[in-house]
């Protein structure tokens, strides 16, 4: 039975400046969504298929293509917004849960943008990073609460405390977990090469490890999620570290489904499931039904890999974040990644993406505070993730208590992603979130890896400059150093939670 809604107003309108157009047909070739087609020697447009991926705009040699968002107005209304109305039309027609791609689109204030950084003036001099080293090297993992030494018969002193394995990062920026399957192999290879080049690490996501990534395995953090896809002892042993995914910021409390269409022959081999079958990750790990079960999984992975590598856990930032973090810290993990409510995803129910969870800024600050209160801060490193957009977000997250960050959407953007949010269609025109061979071939891993490495280099340089200006010469002196932040237009309650003073104070 059809609805009486007719067609919805266009989301985007594509137009061609026919004066400029030379009918080269690159738009027709480049658009995988079927916006353009030939009609004789004229190019016709179907704007309804447009996702705003910008591939046509980018590849038009004459700049003849223009994209307009929401070309048709509704009666403006502050309560019954376009998105509210269109969701109702969608659900009245289908009776289903609305799924959406990428992170939250809620227009809520971003706390990072209301935190100002410090700089030195006359009372203390700034450090010149050109002349004096500013140390960004970061170690992730447990740190001993004290060091013990013994004296050898010849008088030399040596360390007798046994150290646990740590990951050494040349910059506190890592590439976050996005699975092979959600992303193409070329996208994964590009990020892995960038991680190697910049001395950092990359997450595999829950999709196993493709043999094409074995050359970079010492730069990979292999993920174990509730679906256990691609997880076996070989996979665990290949990774530099192992991450247990307990939650995701874009959809806290629920699992995920990789639709069968994305499970190609290669993806099926890596995930170890039949081609074309849905890959369903349940909401909980079904061997963790309580906090007492988590140490069992952590220790099981440690036993299986003989305590040779750090074990991370990733959780979504929710109301009782401090308690969650303390509980996970006591489970024996070496690092905890906290994913804020703006975290990205290939697909999540719209209501979860836009309404569940808390901001990463608050989650990191409360986690750091709680761990220090409980004397556990040295037991785990903290990784902030969920919409880390630029170098200042990195530095602010560290000043709020993080050891490092994961970037993901930013890394995709560095490879060409326009954040159109249509990852779930599997037709990514940039060759990033697709398995279609002709589209995957558009992403040259040599070029894309250079771009991702450039982004990490650029942010690292900016962080060095900002730290130098603040007279801080090592990342350890920045970590949890809230005195180098001031809140601008944040309310008193939030300032207290963040443990940050107001501007002027």
């Amino acid at each position: 039975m059809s609805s009486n809604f007719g067609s919805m107003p266009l989301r985007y309108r594509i137009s061609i400046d026919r004066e400029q157009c030379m009918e080269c047909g690159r738009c027709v070739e480049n658009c995988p969504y079927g916006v353009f087609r030939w009609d004789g020697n004229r190019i016709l447009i179907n704007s309804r298929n447009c996702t705003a991926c910008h591939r046509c705009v980018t590849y038009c040699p004459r700049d003849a293509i223009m994209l307009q968002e929401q070309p048709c107005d509704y009666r403006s209304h502050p309560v019954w917004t376009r998105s509210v109305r269109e969701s109702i039309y969608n659900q009245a027609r289908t009776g289903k849960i609305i799924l959406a791609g990428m992170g939250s689109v809620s227009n809520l204030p971003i706390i990072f943008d209301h935190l100002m950084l410090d700089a030195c003036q006359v009372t203390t001099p700034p450090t010149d990073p050109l002349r004096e080293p500013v140390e960004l090297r970061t170690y992730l993992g447990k740190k001993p609460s004290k060091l013990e030494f013994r004296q050898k018969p010849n008088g030399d002193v040596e360390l007798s405390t046994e150290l646990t394995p740590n990951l050494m990062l040349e910059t506190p920026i890592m590439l976050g977990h996005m699975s092979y399957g959600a992303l193409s192999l070329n996208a994964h290879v590009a990020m892995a090469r960038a991680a190697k080049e910049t001395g950092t690490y990359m997450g595999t996501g829950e999709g196993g490890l493709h043999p094409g990534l074995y050359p970079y395995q010492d730069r990979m953090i292999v993920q174990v999620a509730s679906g256990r896809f691609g997880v076996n002892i070989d996979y665990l042993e290949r990774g530099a570290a192992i991450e247990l995914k307990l939650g995701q910021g874009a959809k806290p409390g629920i699992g995920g489904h990789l639709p069968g269409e994305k499970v190609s022959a290669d993806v099926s081999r890596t995930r170890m499931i039949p081609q074309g079958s849905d890959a369903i990750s349940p909401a909980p790990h079904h061997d963790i039904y309580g906090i007492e079960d988590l140490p069992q999984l952590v220790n099981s992975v440690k036993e299986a890999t003989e305590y040779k590598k750090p074990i991370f856990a990733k959780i979504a930032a929710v109301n009782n974040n401090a308690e969650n973090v303390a509980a996970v810290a006591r489970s024996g993990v070496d690092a905890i990644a906290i994913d804020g409510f703006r975290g990205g995803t290939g697909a999540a129910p719209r209501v979860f993406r836009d309404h569940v969870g808390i901001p990463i800024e608050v989650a990191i600050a409360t986690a750091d505070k709680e761990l220090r209160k409980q004397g556990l801060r040295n037991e785990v490193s903290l990784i902030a993730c969920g919409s880390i957009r630029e170098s200042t977000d990195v530095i602010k997250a560290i000043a709020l208590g993080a050891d490092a960050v994961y970037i993901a959407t930013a890394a995709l953007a560095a490879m060409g992603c326009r954040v159109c949010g249509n990852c779930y269609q599997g037709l990514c025109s940039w060759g990033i979130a697709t398995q279609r061979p002709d589209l995957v071939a558009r992403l040259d891993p040599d070029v894309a890896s250079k771009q991702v490495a450039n982004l990490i280099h650029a942010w690292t340089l900016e962080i060095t400059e900002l730290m130098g200006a603040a007279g801080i010469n090592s990342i350890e002196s920045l970590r949890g150093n809230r005195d180098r932040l001031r809140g601008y237009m944040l309310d008193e309650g939030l300032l207290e939670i963040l443990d940050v003073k107001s501007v002027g104070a």
Partner: protein
Amino acid sequence: MAKQVKIDAKGVHYTPLNQQIRKAIEDGADEIVVDNVLGQRFIGNGLRGNATIRVKGVAGGDLAMFMSGPTVIVDGNAEHAPGNTMDSGKVVIHGSAGDAVAHSMRGGKVFVRGDIGYRGGIHMKQYETQRPILVVGGSAQMFLGEYMAGGLLLVLGLDGAVKAREIGSGIHGGEIVIRGDVDDACLAAGAKKLPLTDEDRARIAPVIREFAADFGLDAEPLVKANYTRIVPASARPFAGKYTWE
């Protein structure tokens, strides 16, 4: 000649115990007998090769997790999740086992003579020639074969009626075979019953015979018995739940 190593687990923490087992395998042991096991966890975790580990006592949680090859025989019960995410090899438990037996198992066999707890065979999955098999001699509790994505789960009900309810909740691959009739009310959403065909019987017969041989049972009455086969109603149980923005 087969090389046997004996290990006394009395009062030993699981880490040094598992180190001793691992070392014995590295040193070429074919059979490792571990005496006085009293709940030590993670025995056989991540081990490769084809040695046999005989556990005398009660095995703790995550027995044979990630294991790839060896055989573990437990003369006693096993705790939470034996065969968890196991790749290949075999686990034979002469007693009963706890919850989440064979959780996410992707290959090999887990045989339990007695009963199992909740969520048995949850999210078992198969790929090409790797097809996990869980056989339970006694009964199973609720959510048997939940989220099952592949493999064979066989419950024989040797000690009375099978108690499982909510069978196959979210099942999207593989098959659950239960001796005797199963009431429709015991099936969860996404699961459906089918009669066992001669072809199905021929496929499960060798599994029943192997199980019977391991526990000294008479196989033929079991091979000939009446079974209910439970399979996914759809390979994509969630396909109808969502629409796109």
